[in-house]
């Protein structure tokens, strides 16, 4: 009990840090993932190759290594002056974008062929077919997997604690070092914080799913 009361400010900071990290990285991942999914179904071979390479590389790289790539690679490229928060958001967002891309792409693949054919036969262009017919339907099937990917992102954000970002993982680390508290109690409160965030996300996505559900 005391752990939470004594260190409430630290917990609050960690909680806000995790929420901020998750929200911004999710935004990046969703935008980037959708763009890359578009690349992967586009008629331009170079873009398709880029999409496949992006997905293959990021899906097979451990996230910790990706954190190293971003935190050490960008300064080497001369892009200095980013603080750790943004680097962590970049790493998490890029990593998750590869998975989001695959979820969106398999969403596109589940739209019945007839839909796109009908759109084509009334003379819609590629952009119209994708934007008005295929994507709105694909989004509905992609929502549940995207929801679980964002939950995975929340959990992955704990890795940022190894890279000097203030969030729940670093709170646990700091408090574990401070002798005098029961580590199980610390774990309990940290776990509760994560459960609050993940339940919120899954609740939001269930809501979204129900709102968008269409009888087919």
């Amino acid at each position, binding site marked *: 009990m005391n752990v939470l009361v004594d260190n409430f400010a630290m917990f609050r900071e960690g909680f806000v840090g995790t929420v901020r990290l998750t929200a911004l990285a999710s935004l990046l991942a969703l935008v980037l993932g959708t763009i890359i999914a578009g690349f*992967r*179904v*586009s*008629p*331009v071979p*170079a*873009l*398709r190759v*880029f999409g*496949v390479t992006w*997905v*293959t*590389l990021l*899906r*097979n*790289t*451990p996230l*910790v*290594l990706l954190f*190293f*790539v971003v935190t*050490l*690679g960008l300064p*080497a*490229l*001369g892009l200095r002056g980013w603080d750790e928060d943004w680097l962590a958001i970049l790493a998490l967002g890029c990593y998750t974008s590869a*998975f989001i891309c695959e*979820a969106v*792409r*398999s969403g*596109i*693949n*589940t*739209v019945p*062929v007839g839909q*796109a*054919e009908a759109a*084509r036969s009334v003379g819609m*262009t*590629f952009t119209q077919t*994708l934007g008005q017919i*295929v994507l709105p339907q694909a989004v509905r099937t992609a929502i549940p997997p995207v929801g*679980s*990917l964002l*939950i*995975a992102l929340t*959990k992955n*954000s*704990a*890795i940022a604690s*190894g890279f000097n970002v203030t969030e729940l*993982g670093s709170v*646990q*680390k700091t408090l*574990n070092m401070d002798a005098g508290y029961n*580590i*199980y109690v610390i774990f309990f409160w*940290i*776990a509760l914080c*994560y459960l609050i965030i993940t339940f919120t996300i899954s609740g939001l996505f269930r809501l979204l799913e129900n709102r968008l559900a269409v009888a087919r």
Partner: protein
Amino acid sequence: MSSASVLYDVPGPKARARNRIYNVASTLLLVGLIVFVIYRFDETGQFQGGLWDDYQYTATQERILDGLVATLKAFGIAAVLSLVLGAVLAAGRLSDHRAIRWSATVVVEFFRAMPLLIMIFLLWAAFFPNDPMWAVVFGLTLYNGSVQAEIFRAGINAVPKGQGEAAYALGMRKTQVMVTVLIPQAVRSMLPSIISQLVVTLKDTSLGSIILYQELLFVGKSFAQQTPPVDGVYAFIPMVIIFGSIYILMCLALSSLATLIERRTRRSAKGAPAGLPATAATVMVDPSHSAEGQPTDPGSTTGASKSGR
């Protein structure tokens, strides 16, 4: 294979010309990006011989090998244990007894919702302060075991209902139905997902480097820190390039196994039980559409794409 062929017509002369321009433009852009990255690395002195020299020494190579062995050891133990735990938990979730079912559900849901690193920190601080390997192994086991349990359960539920009913009608016992009828059929549809989850397990062994387990990434990190900087440049980029390739190759090898198995089960007529998640993809392989001359998608790994977490 992909739906790409339906989204647009077979390109005519104009569209082909336009696509060619797009293609050239985006190729130039991407090549430009790569050249820029290499140029900047060269400019900032990442390619100086001094930073890479270390990797020529046998001692260095042996340490990399040691790290690799440590990674594979943690992965191997965790993989076996997580499969066992997954089987136990799945059996619990499919049990006829409500108490067992509920407790298995609570365990699965809890460990799936916990960040792996938080679990590993706890195990490290509480049980294995001097032996981080077991913290990594048990953390991976608890997390991946719960995920595997869900995969097993989904696989067994995907076997057509008639199979189990027929077996019961023949007078088989619960265990017999499960072992001789349901599991052999379920394993075929589950294997790609199981292996994708094993890839996740392999990748997550790298979390060990944060709690100072001397695995592959930890070795890389300590190389980068130990190599004396040349002209003020630390040897981080060589480390990232070398160790990144090792990880990517290992994971690709494992996930190509998943693709191979998936392709084999799809090819054999008997091996594709109904109700597979793959049906959505098979709809797309309508012969009337695949004849449009679109290049087949090189990366269509339906099994691996579901890996997620």
